Each structure stands twice: as structure tokens, then as C-alpha cells.
């Protein structure tokens, strides 16, 4: 399936395309989509908490901004992998090693962005779980947990990417982000109980 089409698909069709054979959409797109779900949930909780939380609209605006940033990454990750895989095939035939490195570098950059957005969504989810309207705190906690899972997933994708070495600062950053997101999710769950 052409990756240009992902964002226009019905949800059921997108899920079907995930289940189809092939590499894209794959883990990166699914992680980005999960961050989008988390950001959307935080925005919903914030909107529903305006009556009791002075900063609700401001948190909703941040969640909406995150959503705007993450949605294109659902597609971009798949595009980057398609490009990299194409070059891997070409490299297997013994050509274009420099281009391959460049493409893998591009493919590695996307999970780094997904990881950053996931950490932000987890922190916002924690804030909404602590201060949002009581009826919606469970939704905020779900948002934080989803975002933390996406942060962990994105860090894993950074780690396994062929262009990222163990001493690459992006890997340390993604791991630290996943840890921070996990902490935020744990605090969000506590606040929502």
C-alpha cells in the first residue's frame, strides 16, 4: 500500500494494512499512532476539565500541538523504512553503500522524534491525571500508559536501527526518555486510583 494513503484511511482499513504482510506500516507507525491516541485522550480530558481546572485549556493546547506533530510521523516512519529497505536490497547487490547509510540515518531519525513526542505525551497525561476532572482521570492515566509504551517501543526501534551504535547519544536519550515516560505513567496511575 502506498504510504501516502495512511492518513486518509478508515481506522479499520489502517489496522488491516498493519496486519498485512510486508514491513510498512510497522512498529514505528504503530508507535506514532499510539502517541497520537495518547495525545488525543489528554486533549479530551483537558476539554472535559475546563470547569474545575484553570489550566485545562492550556494543557489541551499542548496536547493538540503534540497531535499535530505526531500524526505525520505515522506515515513518515513507513516512508523512511521503505526507502531504507530499498537501499538495503541495492546494497545486497554490492552497490550504493553511502546512500544506504544516509537512508538508514533518515530511518533512525524518525523513531527518535516519536520517542520525544511519546515522553511529552506521557508527561502531559500525568499532569491531566493529577489535576484533571475526577471523572476523566482514568482516561488521562490510560493516555500516560499508552505514551510510555510508545516511548519504550520507539527507544527499541532506535536501538535496533542499523545506523545507531551503542554509544550514539540518540540511543541514550531515547532510553532516558522511555524511563521518564514510564515514571510519568506510574504516577498517573497512582493519581487516578
Amino acid at each position, binding site marked *: 500500500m502506498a504510504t501516502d494513503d495512511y492518513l486518509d484511511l478508515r481506522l479499520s482499513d489502517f489496522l488491516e494494512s498493519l496486519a498485512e504482510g510486508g514491513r510498512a506500516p510497522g512498529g514505528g507507525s504503530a508507535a506514532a499512532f499510539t502517541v497520537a491516541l495518547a495525545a488525543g485522550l489528554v486533549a479530551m480530558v483537558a476539554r472535559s476539565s475546563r470547569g474545575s481546572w484553570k*489550566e485545562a485549556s*492550556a494543557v489541551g493546547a*499542548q496536547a493538540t500541538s503534540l497531535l499535530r506533530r505526531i500524526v505525520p510521523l505515522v506515515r513518515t516512519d513507513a516512508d523512511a523504512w521503505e526507502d531504507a529497505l530499498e537501499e538495503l536490497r541495492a546494497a545486497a547487490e554490492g552497490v550504493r553503500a553511502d546512500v544506504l547509510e544516509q537512508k538508514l540515518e533518515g530511518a533512525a531519525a524518525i523513531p527518535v522524534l516519536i520517542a*520525544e513526542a511519546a515522553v511529552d505525551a506521557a508527561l502531559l497525561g500525568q499532569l491531566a491525571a493529577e489535576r484533571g476532572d475526577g471523572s476523566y482521570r482514568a482516561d488521562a492515566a490510560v493516555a500516560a500508559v499508552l505514551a510510555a509504551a510508545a516511548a519504550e517501543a520507539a527507544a527499541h526501534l532506535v536501538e535496533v536501527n542499523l545506523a545507531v551504535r551503542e554509544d550514539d547519544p540518540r540511543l541514550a536519550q531515547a532510553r532516558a526518555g522511555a524511563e521518564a515516560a514510564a515514571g510519568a505513567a506510574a504516577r498517573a496511575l497512582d493519581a487516578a486510583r
Partner: protein
Amino acid sequence: MRQVPATLTDSQLVQRCREGDPEAWNELVERFSRYVYAICVQGFRLREQDAEDVFQEVFTRVYSRLDTLRDDSAVRPWIAQLTRRLCLDTLAAGSRVQPSDEVLAPAQEQALEDLDEAFAVREAMTALSEPCQEVLDRFFARDESYRTISAELQLPAGTIASRISRCLVQLRERLEGRNEGAAPSSE
């Protein structure tokens, strides 16, 4: 030479212009030039030369007709109205269509509304503290993550979302204050 602070309200600035303060005129042009140009180029899609002609004419008219402005706080909508009219005249001159506000397509109206909102937000931001301006600019305009912002500003990452929230609340209060009583008023 007397300096005119950029923090003057629109009303105060217009008052200084009426008193014949040349620095106030410079500040007025500085404050509204991007707005006028954006209406011409983004709102009406005028060619560069036409946009420059309209730009010159708008400020010539503002200079010569400022005394006809009834409500000093409404100088922005007044300038917007002048600019729109001159843009429509320019388009009409090119296409022989009778100028009218009805010429505006919904997309054009939306573009103008978006411009108004963007400039109002930008203006309101200048009244916030420097740290607030910086944190809002980094998150919303530069799309920086909380981690990046916290590293750059040497603040704990866990506090960035709350800081942004507090600054946004202040910004909204500024915008609400600005919207009270600033309705268009013209010649």
C-alpha cells in the same frame, strides 16, 4: 530624540502620533507593517509589486486620516479595513470586477481571520515576561520537546508542561483584555 517603547498600547501609540511625535509614527509603521503586508500577500495573494503599492498607500492614508479614527484602540481593525479595501481595488483594477467585500471567497475570509488571530497572539505575547515568551515560542513555534526546552533553559523537564500552561493562561488573559472594546471603528 525621544524613544517610543514597543510596550505602548495601540491607543497610547495613536495618541503620540496625533501629538506629532515622529518616533511614534515610526513605531506605528513598525508595529503594523508585517500585518498589512501579510493581508496583501497571504490574504489577497497580491503580486509583490501590487502588495508594495498597497502597503505604501495604506500608510499614506493612515498618516493623512488618523484624525478621522474615532476609537484609538481600534487602530488595528481600522488599518485592516483600509488594507482590505485597497487590496480589493487593486484586484478589481486588474480584473475589471467591481470591488466589494463579497468578492472574498470563504478561504480568503478564513485566511484573513487566521492572520488577525496570529497577529493578535503575537502582540499579546510581547506583553508577557521574557521566560514565558521563550517557553511558548520554543514549544508552539519551534516544536521543541519538553526535554529540549528543559536542557536549553536548564529547568527540570517535569515542570515544563506546567510552565507552558501558566504562560498560556496569562496569554489568554491578555487576549481577552485586548478583545474587550476593540471593535472596528472607521472614518
